[in-house]
């Protein structure tokens, strides 16, 4: 299952610094941290919506049987493929609809410090948007948020993901359904 073809790689520094420049610019453009967080989430969502196609095309991952499999694919295939890291999947809720991704190295925050006057900024909020957008395109509504962040003094970076519902799809008639890879929950 966990197979994926290599895609082009580049030094992560350009990516890290570019993201830093973007967040800095947003902080200049918006009045408060909440607005910046919202904007980052929105941009992430736009990325996720496009990224899923790239992901399905490059990886040979088919539809997932359940949310646990989805979690594994996100951590071991998607994160590895795009950011070169493999977060661990833990803290499952008893119902199996909620889990945490623990990131040991977050390439977005390499050499980043939050100034005191931005204590409510969720620096990597883009990632939440990406996950939400990508999963929405495979008919899953999820809630994604940062539970802990090393930037804010926590020991680890933890992204909490909660399954909300399966989105009923309304495919236009004549659309080739077989060709589209979907994750059914």
């Amino acid at each position: 299952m966990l197979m994926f073809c290599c895609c082009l790689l580049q030094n992560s520094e350009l990516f890290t610094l570019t993201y830093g420049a973007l967040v800095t610019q947003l902080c200049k453009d918006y009045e408060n941290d909440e607005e910046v967080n919202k904007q980052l989430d929105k941009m992430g969502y736009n990325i996720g919506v496009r990224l899923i196609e790239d992901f399905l095309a490059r990886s040979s991952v088919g539809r997932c049987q359940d949310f646990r499999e989805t979690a594994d694919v996100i951590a071991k295939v998607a994160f590895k493929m795009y950011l070169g890291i493999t977060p661990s999947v833990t803290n499952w809720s008893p119902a199996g609809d909620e889990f945490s991704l623990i990131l040991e190295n977050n390439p977005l925050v390499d050499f980043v410090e939050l100034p005191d006057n931005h204590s409510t900024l969720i620096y990597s909020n883009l990632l939440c948007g990406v996950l939400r957008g990508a999963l929405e395109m495979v008919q899953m509504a999820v809630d994604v948020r940062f539970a802990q962040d090393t930037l804010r003094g926590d020991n680890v970076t933890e992204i909490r993901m909660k399954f909300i519902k399966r989105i009923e799809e309304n495919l236009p008639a004549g659309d080739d359904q077989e060709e589209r890879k979907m994750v059914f929950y």
Partner: protein
Amino acid sequence: METRFTRGKSAILERPLTRPKTEVSVSAFALLFSEMVQYCQSRVYSVSELQARLADMGQAVGASLLDVLVLREKNGKRETKVLNILLFIKVSVWRALFGKEADKLEQANDDDKTYYIIEKEPLVNSYISVPKENSTLNCAAFTGGIVEAILTHSGFPAKVTVHWHKGTTLMIKFDEAVIARDKALEGR
């Protein structure tokens, strides 16, 4: 004020500057960059404003990159000659950012202040199709910003503009004073 002054020692300062190379996929960068361009576009009225905003963001990247590269690649030795700083950009900066050297570095025939860095297919442009109505838009303005910041912060104030020519050409125009200083140094 930065946290390291208010909260005491920062863990970041303890980390070594040379690290195992970490990599991310080009798609991740391309998607991020595309969002950046769209965001900038939503807040400006013209192509030149858009390029200026991209260049601003590039400047932030260049400024943060300069010190770490000088320490890592040059052992802390800084360049004093125009040609050397240009080669530093063509080789070290480009390698660190794009994993390769820039395609070409040229000097203008008729002007000793002007240099060109020519890149046939810049990474930042490889996934961008420029709309017909804005055909002058070149998102490598971002790279231009990086180069401008590196030159300026190294003590070689210059203006960098981006043009569609032989692929993408970054035109570097140094301040008069920089060239005059360089000539004086040569005489010694």
